């Protein structure tokens, strides 16, 4: 690649200087055209490959980390609230049970929200079913 691109850089001033001598000019022109064709052939492929792969793999890796931790965090917070409520109010198992399910619903909501399924704080997501199940 580097070997190919060197004639192109020197080709422009070279063709201006060698304007009288027909053969060398034509030869250079042909080589430049060929180089351009090969470059055009090669460049989009390599760049597209890099562009398509790099951000998407980076983003999906980030997304996977984000989604799983958000789901777990909501459940942990739900259980924590339920346990503390039980501890203070003395309603022994029920706070934990109710808030675990609420935390689960919040986790699903978190996942759907960060997956772009639900508008940020807009329309009603279909989690009513989960909450009552």
């Amino acid at each position, binding site marked *: 690649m580097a070997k190919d691109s060197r004639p192109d850089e020197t080709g422009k001033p070279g063709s201006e200087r060698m304007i009288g001598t027909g053969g060398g000019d034509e030869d250079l022109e042909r080589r430049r055209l060929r180089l351009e064709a090969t470059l055009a052939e090669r460049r989009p492929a390599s760049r597209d490959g890099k562009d398509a792969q790099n951000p998407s793999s980076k983003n999906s890796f980030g997304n996977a980390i984000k989604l799983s931790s958000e789901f777990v965090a909501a459940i942990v917070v739900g259980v924590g609230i339920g346990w503390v409520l039980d501890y203070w109010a003395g309603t022994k198992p029920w706070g934990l049970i109710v808030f*675990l399910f609420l935390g689960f619903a919040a986790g699903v909501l978190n996942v759907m929200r960060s997956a772009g399924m639900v508008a940020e704080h807009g329309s009603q997501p279909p989690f009513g079913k989960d909450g009552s199940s």
Partner: protein
Amino acid sequence: MDVEAAKAIGAGIACLGMGGAGMGLGAIFGNYLAGALRNPSAADGQFGRLIFGFAVTEALGIFSLLIALLLLFT
């Protein structure tokens, strides 16, 4: 056997249920991915059903987590 020890063992056994939920989730996401690779244009439209299946399956796993937590913390 001590009651505390029996509780801890019971909590551990209850967590086996989470494994079942894990298998179910694997089946759901695997099949979704297989379907999405066959027909990528239809994949986005089915994402809601994927999440619904995920929620319903995971709810059963949450039941066993609930049993484990109840055994440990009450």
